[in-house]
């Protein structure tokens, strides 16, 4: 494992127990450089969502350090909450505005951005994620992929330093998955630092710089995606197969998306 403390986000020996005796996240350490994408994978219940929520500051951590640009923010959950954006798996509860425009405005109002600046940010993000035509629609009437892009837009307008996506492909059909992959690739081109938590790694692994595999709250593998991918199958992560052999990095089904 290569932990570099002056990376954009460095996590050292992080523990989260959610107030119980059993630790959900145990001694987790990893780092991600600015502009890179980390794929966080693991079986259901491996602690991915809890780890993201703990890092963002939504739930308390029991121990360990969280460095953001070399500054220890482990005891400053409010600052972490502001600097880190999290797009939840359940977009229906994350989207609170009754039109897409109102939802994008929601976060901006919360951080006190003035109207002119808010409108320019909304225009910019809507254009980036190709949701300009949806601005005056009711989010509840949108498709799964559109909802996911709106939820992503809702956090992007707040200009976070790092973006977490929790199960971005959950409950999406083929066009929805393509839309989300497109949005991730667009963000990467813009230089965003992203952590994607998913067990559907074949969909996005090709676009990720590093891979972290979590099992029962512990890191079982962490490194460059191409090299670490071979360890995924041994840790309960499904890799598509060709002739009964797990496909390699270059053959990943969704890589051309």
């Amino acid at each position, binding site marked *: 494992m290569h932990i570099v403390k002056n990376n954009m986000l460095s996590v050292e020996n992080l523990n989260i127990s959610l107030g119980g005796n059993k630790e959900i996240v145990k001694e987790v350490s990893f780092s991600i450089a600015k502009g890179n994408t980390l794929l966080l994978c693991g079986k259901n219940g491996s602690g991915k969502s809890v780890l993201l929520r703990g890092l963002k500051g939504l739930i308390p951590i029991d121990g360990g350090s969280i460095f953001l640009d070399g500054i220890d923010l482990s005891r400053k959950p409010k600052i972490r909450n502001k600097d880190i954006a999290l797009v939840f798996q359940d977009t*229906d509860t994350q989207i609170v*505005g*009754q*039109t897409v425009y109102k939802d994008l405005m929601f976060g901006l109002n919360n951080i006190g951005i003035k109207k002119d600046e808010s409108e320019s940010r909304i225009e910019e993000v809507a254009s980036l994620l190709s949701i300009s035509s949806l601005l005056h629609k009711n989010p509840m009437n949108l498709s799964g992929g559109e909802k996911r892009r709106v939820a992503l837009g809702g*956090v992007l307008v707040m200009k976070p330093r790092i973006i977490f996506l929790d199960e971005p492909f959950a409950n999406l059909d083929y066009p929805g998955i393509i839309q989300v992959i497109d949005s991730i690739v667009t963000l990467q081109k813009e230089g965003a630092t992203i952590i994607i938590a998913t067990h559907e790694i074949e969909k996005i692994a090709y676009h990720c710089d590093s891979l972290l595999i979590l099992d029962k709250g512990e890191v079982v593998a962490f490194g460059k995606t191409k090299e670490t991918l071979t360890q995924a199958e041994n840790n309960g992560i499904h890799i598509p197969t060709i002739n009964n052999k797990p496909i390699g990095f270059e053959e990943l089904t969704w890589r051309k998306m």
Partner: protein
Amino acid sequence: MNIFHYRDIDTPLHNLAPITKIILTLVISSLIIKSSIIFTSSIAVTLFLLLILIKVPLRNYAKEGIYFFFLLSVISISHYISSENIVGTIQITLAFISMIMVSVILIDTTAFNDIASTIGSFLSIISPKLGYRIATTIELTLHMIPLFFDSASELRTARKARGQKMNRHVIRNVVEYVSALFAITFIKVEHLELALKARLFDPDREREFIRVRKKDLFVLLVATFLIIILYLTL
């Protein structure tokens, strides 16, 4: 679409300022309780015509009608047993239906963020902190209503798909259904709380005042005048 969702469409009612619709809702709701059956019937018919005028998807909403039908039955039966007055019972029934219709019209035509901002801005004149807090409470409550009805709809469809017949073992089925509904709603509330926290939601934040135009004032004055005249004469 399920009941109590805002539809962003272009109708004269959608274009009115939230404050106009809120005041008219309050006027109708307060007068309808103690009035004549002719007044109540007139209001009920007018509201029904308004529902049709703004093209509310009544067929979709009828699915949720079972909750209101249940409440309506309880109210009407208990009123009739206590008063033995059939006209009074019909009037109470119509008043209840009118209240539902007026709420549907308000929520269908006004985004709850706008309802909350309007009430918050007005109350903030008395006390800014209290005003904005009340606005937040209203906003969250209104946000939960469609979530609750959506959960109920999902649950009902899932049970129906698995062949459950609600008219067999009624009590057991209703208890199971209601328990599951509350469990799902609590999970959604928890998710909502985390999502709000994640987007730095501040319950005390200042709300934007939504401007009232001359057109809104005109509609408000004329409609209130007509309602009061009807109330006094009928």
